[in-house]
């Protein structure tokens, strides 16, 4: 009973053009003088170069290690010297250079030590999978997904079918076909390794019916095994992974899912061959079969070519007519892309190199408007609506395109192939896919930026908070210190006064006004005492402004007396009002005209500088006057019974007089002091200058003497030095004499 073949939707039948490259067997490509090996030949993270410029490498030696999980190592395809690790043109439609390791081949083709894994079935499966990974094997059908990851299924995943994709549905390409025809046994050996690795219920080989020789070879190679060769009708793109799975098993891989989700693993023919070489021979992936075809090629065929061989070298060997070719296509005519530089190397996924003539593949015609014929929908193998996707891509409506499952488009090109309007549909889809990818990257970056920004904000806030706390702590400490100082001063003042008049009892019982008055009196007394002290000092020193000081002392004494009388009065009043309510006692306070003096001055530390005392006194008097003035104004504005305006006015006038007097005294004193200072300076300066001169000349003379001593008498410059020394010596003596004279004067 023959196996049921499901039929994929859509699909096309382009001219196959496969015979041209099947005229001869596999041709060994020449070893070029220079190999250019990109570190990125697979999907995933690029490898990490592990050789340096100038290193000699052997065939099969690792030159770039795997860098992450989705990554594979890269090996030297032949022996030679690493001449450069730099950016070179590589196989990428963007034409952006990629990092390559350049090897100058030595022609010896000398292998590195390598050994086959004998009897792989006795090994751990993970060991074999790692060996496949270390051999640098990535899907050779075109996508380049690391094969070891595909095979490294989780233990709980049950694989029902293992598929070998030999459909090779794209026109022109015959790489797998020729490989099977010549080396079917080796392909099957590779497949058997995979079979052992994933333990599928059945193993199938999918192959299109346009390859009768390959089918025969496979049937012969699998005759005594449980591997079944399933021939499918020729239709593009039956070789697509999801398409082949459906064709052979009827299973559909969900959108965004993996084949292993439905219990299927699908591997390419070339990959199976490479796995065989890796396990049974210990050879890493360093070469592949590439179809070189197109009408511009004389020797069309399949070449076994070292990875990293420049396209130009391969084309020369195939005797390409560069003048006839319109362009170079890497990959097949449906899914490949044009390359613009023949220096681009052959890589792991390069299954075909197409050099068509202008007649064979002409310049594309101009795009025309979509006529909504719906042909594209009929051929789409993924069951999408290409026309709708086209409109959305054209108008940049990415979200709608996503809703119409743009991500499931396999970019096979069937829609473009049938489009009567020449619309490059695949490019529209690729554009949209790129935009979506870009947007996702931007969103990711924005999220990252937001996180960083918020973290920074939090950090700055924290720093500010800490600073603020430190500042507060400092301020508190300072305030405490200040308070302690104040307390000490207050104690001192209190001690100095307690002997003279007031008992502590009244102080505690008296209301605030009286207390204030008391402190006013105390400070006035203190200032008077300070002034007196200053006067005494001045008298002792015979200072000029004794008169002014004397006057000041008198004034301060009067003020202190005044304050005392006021305080006594207030105390009396306080005692009288002791019974009355607190409001009345509050009312009485404004009577005392001297009261506003209180806030003006904390007790100044005693000073011996008469100038300072004068200044202080002047400022105090001025403040007193101003305060008194304000009081008068207040009293005038709000006349009240308890306030005697006349008294206030009188006090104000007195304060004004006092202030003016003290100001004049201070000004006079300042002028005199200035004069005195200048005179003193005039006397001091010349002596100082002379002293300095003397010291300098003395040092010079000493230096000259030292220099003289260090030289012998017969030295040439001895005479000159001696003269110099004598000169310096005389200068020093003169300076000293001058200084003495000045000091005596």
């Amino acid at each position, binding site marked *: 009973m023959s196996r049921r073949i499901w039929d994929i939707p859509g699909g096309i039948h382009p001219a196959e053009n496969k015979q041209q490259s099947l005229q001869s067997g596999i041709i060994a490509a020449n070893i070029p003088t220079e190999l250019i090996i990109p570190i990125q030949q697979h999907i995933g993270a690029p490898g990490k170069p592990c050789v340096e410029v100038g290193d000699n490498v052997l065939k099969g030696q690792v030159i770039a290690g795997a860098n992450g999980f989705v990554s594979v190592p890269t090996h030297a395809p032949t022996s030679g010297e690493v001449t450069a690790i730099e950016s070179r043109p590589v196989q990428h439609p963007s034409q952006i250079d990629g990092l390559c390791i350049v090897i100058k081949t030595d022609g010896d083709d000398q292998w590195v030590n390598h050994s086959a894994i004998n009897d792989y079935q006795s090994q751990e499966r993970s060991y074999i999978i790692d060996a496949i990974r270390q051999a640098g094997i990535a899907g050779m059908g075109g996508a380049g997904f690391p094969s070891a990851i595909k095979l490294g299924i989780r233990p709980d995943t049950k694989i029902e079918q293992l598929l070998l994709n030999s459909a090779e549905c794209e026109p022109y390409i015959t790489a797998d076909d020729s490989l099977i025809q010549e080396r079917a046994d080796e392909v099957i050996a590779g497949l058997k390794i995979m079979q052992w690795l994933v333990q599928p219920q059945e193993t199938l080989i999918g192959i299109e019916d346009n390859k009768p020789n390959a089918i025969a070879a496979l049937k012969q190679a699998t005759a005594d095994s449980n591997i079944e060769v399933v021939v499918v009708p020729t239709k593009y793109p039956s070789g697509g992974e999801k398409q082949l799975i459906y064709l052979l098993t009827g299973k559909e891989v969900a959108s965004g899912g993996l084949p292993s989700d439905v219990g299927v693993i699908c591997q390419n023919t070339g990959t199976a061959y490479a796995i065989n070489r890796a396990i049974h021979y210990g050879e890493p992936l360093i070469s592949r079969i590439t179809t070189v075809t197109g009408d511009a090629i004389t020797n069309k065929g399949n070449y076994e070519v070292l990875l990293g061989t420049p396209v130009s070298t391969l084309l020369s060997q195939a005797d390409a007519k560069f003048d006839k070719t319109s362009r170079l296509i890497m990959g097949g005519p449906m899914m490949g892309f044009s390359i613009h530089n023949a220096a681009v190397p052959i890589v792991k996924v390069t299954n075909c190199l197409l050099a068509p003539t202008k007649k064979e593949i002409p310049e594309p015609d101009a795009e025309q408007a979509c006529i909504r014929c719906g042909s594209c929908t009929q051929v789409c193998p993924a069951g999408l609506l290409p026309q709708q996707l086209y409109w959305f891509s054209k108008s940049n409506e990415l979200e709608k395109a996503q809703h119409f499952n743009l991500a499931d488009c396999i970019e096979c090109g069937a829609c473009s192939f049938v489009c009567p309007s020449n619309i490059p549909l695949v490019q529209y889809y690729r554009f949209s896919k790129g935009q979506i990818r870009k947007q996702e990257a931007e969103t990711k970056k924005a999220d990252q*930026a937001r996180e960083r920004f918020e973290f920074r904000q939090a950090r700055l806030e924290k720093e500010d908070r800490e600073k603020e706390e430190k500042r507060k702590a400092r301020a508190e400490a300072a305030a405490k210190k200040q308070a302690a100082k104040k307390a000490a001063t207050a104690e001192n003042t209190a001690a100095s006064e307690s002997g003279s008049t007031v008992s502590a009892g009244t102080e505690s019982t008296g209301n605030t006004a009286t207390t204030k008055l008391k402190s006013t009196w105390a400070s006035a007394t203190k200032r008077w005492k300070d002034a007196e002290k200053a006067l005494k000092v001045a008298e002792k020193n015979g200072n000029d402004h004794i008169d002014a000081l004397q006057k000041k002392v008198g004034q301060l004494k009067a003020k202190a007396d005044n304050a005392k009388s006021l305080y006594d009065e207030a105390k009396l009043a306080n005692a009288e009002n002791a019974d009355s309510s607190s409001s009345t006692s509050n009312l009485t306070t404004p009577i005392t005209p001297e009261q506003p003096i209180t806030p003006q001055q904390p007790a100044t530390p005693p000073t011996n500088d008469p100038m300072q005392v004068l200044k202080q006194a002047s400022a105090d008097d001025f403040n007193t006057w101003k305060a008194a003035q304000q009081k008068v104004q207040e009293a005038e504005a709000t006349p009240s019974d308890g306030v005697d305006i006349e008294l206030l006015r009188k006090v104000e006038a007195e304060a004004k007089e006092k202030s003016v007097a003290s100001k004049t005294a201070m000004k006079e004193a300042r002028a005199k002091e200035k004069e005195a200072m200048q005179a003193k300076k005039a006397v001091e300066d010349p002596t100082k200058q002379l002293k300095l001169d003397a010291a300098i000349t003395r040092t010079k003379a000493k230096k000259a003497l030292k220099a003289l001593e260090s030289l012998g008498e017969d030295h040439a410059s001895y005479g000159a030095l001696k003269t110099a020394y004598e000169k310096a010596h005389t200068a020093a003596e003169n300076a000293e004499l001058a200084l003495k004279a000045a000091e005596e004067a």
Partner: protein
Amino acid sequence: MSEDLSAIFSLVSMAILFGSLLGYAAIKFATEDDPVAEQIDALLPQTQCGQCGHPGCRPYAEAVANDEDEINKCIPGGEDTIHAMADLLGKEFIPLDADESDVIDTPVVAYIREDECIGCTKCIQACPMDAILGAAKQMHTVIVDECTGCDLCVEPCPVDCIDIIPEKQTQQTWVWTQPNGPGVSPGEMIPVRNIA
């Protein structure tokens, strides 16, 4: 009469029950942030450049959420962001509020000409992303992956050694261009149309 009473009683008791339930839920499941501002913030490019007149993307999102500012102030976001915000808020699209010269299409990053850098750390303090690395009197450099190209570091530089340059395109960031549309040949990039 008793039916009336029972109806009233049941309705009142239900009202009390659901009222307390809702009240409890309002306290228990209260969101601290404004969810609309959050959504708008998610649409913004997070360059924190301040070109909208707000000190960062989040404040602008909050201003838009509270109807205090228009949706067309985000220059780095461009028209795409305005469209997205218009969709989210159910507003009409309005063109970007910026001079043509201010709008940069390609992504940019800051670049410090390191031999000219005097190590003043001014740009480090200005960078909202902490994307500049360096210390006092040591040359500074930009961490390209973190730089959003907001150009806030350019102005404080006393020696003008910071350039805003287009981000270097790599194979990973490269994307296919949109075909030119009807009337123009699609070019040779993809051959598929030409085989018969």
